[in-house]
């Protein structure tokens, strides 16, 4: 087996080798596709999990990370569906952005059923914040202001219109009973950092983003986090941020990170990868990485994870229809 694995690695024809029928699955030259350029969240997911997989000796050789960017992950998705459909040694990094785009048909002709969903390795919870000198103190107050006069509050976020940062605000607005959520004003910037800067400069009134983007600015006292969109208060240093739930708004917005695998991956291989990601999640190494990168617990795998992704896609589809983004 080892000889075969070495031959596969040497010939670089991993896809060919992997498609040979495997009895009980043993990983050979494993690969993780990051559907974006080096440096982004998907790249981080592949590299850190790949490293942990090898450190824990779950895979025999270091996981090769391939950056396949384009179309907000769509290029990688269609590549996997069209060309790597039965590759047993391949996993692909995914996040809320993946499910949001699938829901909105932003990967042309693709659906979630064309791949197998492996599991999550953590989540970054959404926050809604205002500048430190804003008179608004709670999420409820902010949303009531929006209700009274939608043009009085502009939300800045790092994703495109219809993207995850936008949807979080809309979900919260709906929970507060705002009927015409199309009136909620959202301004799209390139990334959370730029959006926070605009809030600090007073060009917008509120910020929507992920906790990891906002924490530094909250620590320095520049912004006030009105609510974190988590089911309950987060552990440790993050416990000081109130949740939306305790303010009477039942809103949870988790930007999850995880993996999917090719749709025709064998059941044995799929079971192996589900177990592998589970082991990584449970390891001390991974706990350290989560702590240092601000990832919060979200532990789903196999069927539970698939159901979770489906639920997210359904919700996103409904709200995207409501704002007229899709028909």
């Amino acid at each position: 087996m080892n000889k075969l694995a070495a031959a596969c690695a040497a010939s670089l024809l991993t896809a060919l080798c992997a498609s040979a029928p495997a009895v009980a699955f043993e990983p050979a030259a494993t690969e993780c596709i990051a559907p974006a350029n080096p440096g982004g969240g998907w790249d981080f997911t592949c590299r850190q999990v790949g490293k942990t997989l090898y450190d824990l000796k779950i895979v025999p050789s270091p996981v090769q990370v391939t950056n396949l960017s384009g179309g907000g992950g769509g290029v990688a998705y269609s590549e996997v569906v069209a060309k790597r459909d039965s590759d047993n040694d391949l996993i692909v990094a995914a996040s809320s952005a993946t499910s949001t785009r699938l829901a909105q048909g932003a990967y042309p002709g693709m659906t979630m059923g064309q791949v197998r969903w492996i599991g999550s390795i953590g989540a970054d919870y959404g926050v809604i914040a205002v500048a430190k000198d804003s008179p608004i103190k709670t999420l409820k107050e902010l949303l009531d202001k929006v209700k009274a006069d939608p043009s009085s509050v502009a939300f800045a976020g790092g994703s495109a219109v219809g993207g995850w940062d936008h949807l979080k605000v809309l979900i919260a607005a709906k929970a507060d009973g705002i009927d015409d959520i199309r009136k909620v004003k959202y301004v799209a910037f390139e990334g959370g950092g730029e959006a926070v800067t605009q809030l600090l400069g007073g060009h917008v009134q509120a910020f929507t983003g992920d906790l990891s983007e906002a924490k530094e600015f909250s620590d320095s006292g520049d912004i006030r986090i009105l609510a974190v969109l988590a089911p309950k208060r987060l552990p440790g240093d993050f416990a000081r941020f109130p949740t939306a739930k305790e303010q009477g708004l039942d809103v949870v917005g988790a930007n999850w990170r995880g993996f999917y695998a090719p749709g025709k991956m064998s059941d044995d291989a799929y079971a192996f990868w589900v177990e592998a990601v589970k082991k990584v999640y449970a390891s001390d190494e991974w706990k350290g990485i989560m702590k240092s990168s601000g990832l919060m617990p979200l532990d789903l795998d196999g069927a539970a994870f698939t159901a979770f992704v489906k639920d997210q896609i359904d919700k996103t589809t409904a709200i995207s229809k409501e704002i007229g983004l899709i028909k």
Partner: protein
Amino acid sequence: MDALASLAHGFAVALTLQNLGLAFVGCFLGTIIGALPGLGPSNGVAILIPLAFTLGLPATPAIILLTSVYYGAMYGGRISSILLNIPGDEPALMTTLDGHPMARKGQAGEALALSGIASFVGSLLATCGLVFLAPLLVRVALLFGPAEYFALFTLAFATLGGVASRNQAKSLIAAALGLGIALIGVDHQTGVPRFTFGNVHLYDGINFLVAIVGLFAISEVLLFLEHRGEGEHAPGKVALGRVTVPLAMLKRTWATMLRATGVGFLAGVLPGAGASLGSFIAYTLEKGLAGKGAGFGAGEPRGVAAPEAGNNAAAGGALVPMLALGVPGSGTTAVLLAMLLALNITPGPLLFQRNPDVVWGLIAALFIANVMLLLMNLPLVGLFVRVLRIPTRYLMPGVAMISFVGIYGISGSTFDLLEMIVFGVAGYLLRKLDVPLVPIILGILLGDQMEKNLRRALTISDGDWSILWGSWLAIAIWTLAIVGFLAPLVIGRFVRPKVKDTVAQ
């Protein structure tokens, strides 16, 4: 002086054998990466990130290595701009305008030395600026909302006519082409795909690196094929001469360098503007100040000093918002930011207090890298030039290969290669028609940002256009834009330059 004490501490951090060695390696690789067409600072740094991780470097040495590459690439970009008329990276675009004509006049050595010194002045002063002005400049950056950004990009376009060509109509056509190309992709404000024909590869729009390499490098190869080596004046054969600057030339350009540094630094500090805008505005400003008839575009030393001082100063300036706000001021700092995050260092308002070793070690390393780069780029520039002095018939296949490998390396997508070839053929035809290429690139680069900021501003104001001139800063920028647009037209009536356009503009 708090900053000076911190800086002294920074030098203590940076002056270890390992860090000095890494800075040296970074500078050397950076210069080569910058000099090779197609490999710009952002992909150069991106390519070396795996190296830093493989070596298992801690945060400070890793970031020293990568910022040395960044500064090195800023120096190196000029070499191929001057000798080959192909910008080594996108900020060195403006250096082709006067650098290459100088080289063709037999002043390649002077042009390289002068631009090396201008680069040194630009980045040295910008690094000083980083030390003393970082906290202050963060506040200036905050004044820029979408409306102010829109005015700023309009300023860039208003002054465009004066930059690249003497034929305003062709400049305009080229800029319009660029703006049109910038429309391709998913519209950020509505999520609707535009001009993508359902092709997922076009959803992210046209990568300007692909456009640059296609328009410049591939069209260069095509032009060479057409002439099949008949021209012995081929760019690779440009005589280097002595790499020194006559004192008179320095005397004539020192004020230019200082002005360009100031302008470039400010452009770098503004998030999203970056080094290209820095060199662009610096060049336009100098050209405007000199008036027509000064020989800009025909090998004017000031036209070499300005963009080089400008883009190196912008490179330093772009570190200010990255370190102080966590907001990258350019494509390369975006990559550096990602690297810092991967090393578990979160740039932002608290970085200077939380990780003083990293910040001040980095700043000290920048000073050291600068001196190293000056030494590498003056006496040793011949070494880098030799890479580019290979006869054209050997060089061109190399250029083609590096273009293909470089572009494939960015995205791993064959679609980008096809896109690059399309741009190459288009660039070839446009050069035949004497249409300048620089405005196309600027259109692609700035048009996208310009549109986004206009629409952001209008969303904020509920469609009220008056937000565009709603602040004193916006009004000031608009005034500059109008003056910048009208001045060349008025002055141009009196002084018509006689020099013909060079092909590759």
